[in-house]
């Protein structure tokens, strides 16, 4: 969903750039609470994985493909603030190194693919975990559902930006219908990749999944003992 140069006019591109700068600024402050000596390397690896997965276009309909956006995945693995930064780094390097996504459209692309996917995807993921039983299967199911919705949400955000600052005179209703339709299909691919990846990490190292933290609390007694002793409980 990388917007090239020329789709969106200059004023709206600048406005989207301001939104992106503000969003990334908030994410930089929030990420401090999510990142430490162990999760910082994991966040770098997650960004690299999102880049790799974005290269894998899968067919969704005749003559149309889609690829992972990765905002929901990154947010569940390393936290929402850090997730925004992961996707933003990917988008920045894609634009600078690989001529993918226009330089003047970087603000639009960060807004739709980093901010909207994480806010919608991670927000929905949290809501679902609140009502689902606290199990690994719930985390996987919530990952799937959140990722499905995050992609059409990004398509809606693009359409809204296009409605305000689009350079070509086309029917917004038609654009909205077509964008949402195809991105619901792409969302299913996004959801499969997200759920498989989250489930794989949960299977080997559940303690590394930010979104599963509530499930992985050590038993009460040991935590209390460890706190009283002023040390960390040993991981099993």
């Amino acid at each position, binding site marked *: 969903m990388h917007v090239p140069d020329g789709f969106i006019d200059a004023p709206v591109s600048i406005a989207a750039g301001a939104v992106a700068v503000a969003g990334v600024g908030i994410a930089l402050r929030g990420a401090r609470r999510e990142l430490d000596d162990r999760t910082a390397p994991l966040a770098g690896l997650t960004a690299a994985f999102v880049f790799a997965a974005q290269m*894998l276009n899968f067919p969704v309909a005749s003559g149309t493909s889609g690829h992972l956006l990765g905002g929901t995945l990154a947010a569940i693995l390393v936290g929402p603030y850090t997730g925004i930064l992961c996707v933003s780094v990917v988008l920045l390097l894609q634009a600078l190194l690989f001529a993918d996504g*226009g330089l003047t459209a970087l603000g639009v692309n960060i807004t739709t693919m980093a901010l909207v996917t994480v806010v919608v995807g991670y927000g929905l993921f949290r809501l679902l975990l609140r009502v689902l039983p606290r199990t690994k299967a719930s985390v996987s199911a919530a990952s799937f559902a959140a990722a499905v919705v995050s992609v059409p949400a990004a398509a809606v955000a693009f359409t809204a930006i296009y409605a305000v600052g689009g350079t070509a005179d086309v029917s917004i209703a038609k654009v909205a219908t077509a964008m949402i339709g195809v991105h619901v299909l792409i969302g299913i691919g996004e959801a499969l990749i997200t759920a498989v990846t989250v489930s794989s990490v949960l299977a080997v190292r559940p303690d590394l999944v930010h979104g599963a933290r*509530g499930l992985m609390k050590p038993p009460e007694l040991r935590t209390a003992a460890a706190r009283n002793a002023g040390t960390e409980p040993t991981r099993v």
Partner: protein
Amino acid sequence: MTTKRFFIGFLLVSFVLAGVVSHYASGDPDGLEKVAADKGISAKEKDHSLKDSPFGDYGVKGIENTRLSGGLSGVIGVGAVLLVGGALFWGVRRRGPHRDAAGEQDERTERAPSEPARKG
């Protein structure tokens, strides 16, 4: 699985996806490109200002073999993202050891991303 082994495995998966599997990815236009072409959004599309850069459009200039060219650009991209992202995250991180069991920290990190950052 040790953390080190997990990290190495995760990185290897990314390198294989970008370096090898990407060759088999669909070459069809993506959702936005397709809609843009069908509905006329792309009427005023401009060429990317860096399209002739060394890795423009996920290839390496000068390498004719598309499998090698695309795969190499993928490996370079994974390395570049890891480097830039890793440096950023390492710089932003909270200093000190990992704190899984700190209840206060859990509560804070579970706040929704749409909420404004806490002052201070």
